[in-house]
């Protein structure tokens, strides 16, 4: 029996009895394990628990019980999102073997909806990276070309969905970490508006910037996942107490009359010609279906990356202070006293890129430098946000590339962190301003590598955003293309 491709189709098949959840889970786990040596998308799998969950769903169906919107759907969870089952390592030696005491809010919501969590995916350590090369569990390989990176930090989730190991996965996006890997892997990656999804259970990196977001093969599935995980949570005081629209999962995809903002500065030097070509063709496709392309100006965009790397690292220096070897995580064996315990544990078990960012953030907040760096960045952030407020008075969504390049080769940027940071240029502003933003497959370059189109909308305008994205998927089929099977090395 053929298992359907999308999350909504799988849920329908399970609900109607056409497919058994246990068969679907067994099949997903089998594919995951076959692909694992070559791709390394997963840090851990929850085989026994997933099969038990699936059997429970089949039994509930047989007994005529009401099943949730994601019943029987296998889902993977990025390993910086807490699960009670198994471990949550954040891709770090510091948290090797760490067992979370609770499920993240988004995980609880998925489970309540009947989803079957099959395992935890690889990531750049603590979410800090754009290539999935900075992980204690080794790099993940892009299924489109295994010599290339899947992007990061949610590289494992993006690769797993691209390779059709699971139809959906959770990632987290602090500066582009859902959208950029989605672009590199040819899948849909959504960063919800800040405060749309609870951050409870997401191990914090940049608290004022990040959101948990879905990676899927279709925009319709993305909307479905968002409708399940979005909403108010009293355990996250930064979560918006705002009603989630009922029609979030019901997309019409109408493009006629939609005003799409395009910023010419986005197409300046530094953007790969192949990427520019695909993105411009996508804009033409949208225009041909009745959307209006409207020039917009975002004058402070060129400062967004500098702004982000001060704010995110400053917040990280506070958020990662808890990893001190005292209550959880690895502890150095050589400590002579308590101060030594902190410094040695953090020195030994946090990775180099994490340490680099903690150093930058600590410096930016330190006495004598706070005003020049952190406070200055917060003011520039206001100007970045104001640019978007002005633009969204004229347009419904803003379209742009997701990244300046397609997936680069493994090892290519690892010795040049600054060059890695500069790759975040298109995605980062949405995190500073709290916008919602999505990357959707828009085509392929001459080397056959996926290119994403980014759409951004004002905070809490996910319906408008996803309707345009869905509209694009109704008239194109890039999102249906799959990489060749990744199996034996």
């Amino acid at each position, binding site marked *: 029996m053929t298992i359907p491709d999308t999350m909504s189709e799988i849920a329908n098949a399970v609900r109607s009895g056409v497919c058994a959840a246990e068969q679907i889970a067994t099949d997903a786990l089998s594919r995951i394990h076959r692909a694992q040596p070559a791709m390394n998308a997963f840090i851990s799998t929850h085989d026994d628990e997933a099969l038990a969950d699936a059997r429970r769903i089949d039994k509930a169906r047989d007994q005529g019980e009401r099943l949730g919107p994601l019943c029987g759907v296998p889902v993977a969870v990025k390993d910086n999102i807490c699960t009670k089952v198994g471990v949550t390592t954040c891709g770090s030696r510091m948290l090797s073997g760490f067992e979370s005491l609770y499920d993240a809010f988004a995980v609880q919501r998925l489970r309540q909806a009947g989803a079957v969590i099959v395992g935890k995916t690889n990531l750049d350590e603590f979410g800090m990276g754009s290539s999935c090369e900075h992980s204690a569990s080794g790099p993940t390989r892009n299924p489109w070309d295994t010599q290339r990176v899947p992007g990061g930090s949610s590289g494992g989730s993006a690769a797993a969905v691209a390779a059709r190991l699971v139809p959906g996965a959770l990632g987290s996006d602090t500066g582009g970490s859902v959208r950029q890997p989605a672009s590199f892997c040819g899948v849909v990656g959504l960063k919800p508006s800040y405060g749309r999804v609870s951050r409870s259970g997401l191990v914090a990196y940049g608290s004022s910037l990040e959101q948990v977001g879905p990676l899927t093969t279709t925009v319709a599935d993305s909307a479905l996942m968002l409708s399940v995980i979005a909403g108010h949570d009293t355990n996250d005081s930064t979560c918006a107490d705002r009603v989630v629209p009922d029609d979030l999962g019901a997309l019409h995809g109408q493009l006629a009359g939609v005003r799409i903002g395009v910023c010419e500065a986005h197409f300046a030097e530094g953007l790969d010609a192949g990427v520019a070509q695909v993105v411009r063709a996508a804009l033409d496709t949208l225009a041909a279906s009745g959307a209006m392309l409207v020039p917009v100006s975002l004058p402070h965009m060129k400062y967004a990356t500098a702004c982000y790397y001060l704010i995110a690292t400053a917040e990280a220096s506070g958020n990662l202070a808890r990893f001190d070897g005292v209550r959880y995580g690895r502890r150095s064996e050589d400590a002579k006293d308590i101060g030594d315990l902190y410094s040695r544990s953090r020195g030994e078990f946090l990775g180099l890129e994490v340490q680099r960012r903690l150093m930058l953030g600590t410096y930016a907040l330190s006495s004598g430098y706070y005003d020049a760096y952190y406070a200055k960045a917060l*003011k520039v952030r206001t100007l970045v946000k104001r640019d978007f407020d002005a633009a969204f008075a004229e347009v419904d969504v803003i379209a742009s590339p997701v990244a300046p390049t397609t997936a680069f080769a493994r090892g290519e940027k690892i010795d040049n962190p600054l060059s890695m940071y500069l790759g975040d240029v298109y995605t980062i502003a949405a995190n500073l301003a709290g916008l919602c933003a999505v990357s959707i497959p828009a085509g392929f370059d001459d080397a056959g590598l996926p290119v994403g189109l980014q759409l951004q909308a004002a905070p809490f305008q996910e319906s408008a955003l996803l309707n345009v994205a869905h509209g694009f998927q109704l008239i194109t089929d890039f999102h249906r293309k799959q990489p060749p099977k990744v199996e034996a090395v």
Partner: protein
Amino acid sequence: MAGEFDDNLVRHVAHLARLKLSDEVIHSFASHLSRVVDYVNLLNEVDTEGVPETAHPLAAVGVMRDDTVGPSVDHDEALRNAPDRGDGFFRVPKVLDQGDA
């Protein structure tokens, strides 16, 4: 502000961050941090006179709940990941009469 990160500044910041780093790493961080600080100095081009800070994209301030007692984490559960424990506590090396901690 100079983007001059020398090894001594790195050592100072590493101490603030409670990171014990080898001399080799300290030296490589000096060069990396110099380059990044040089880059972020770009923000000096922006006129931010009179511009308020945005620490947070949502305006919400002082989100509270009623001060009522409810179930919390079980004591033993809270110790589950402890690297060292004793008598129901997290156990660490002595805190008192040490140098600067």
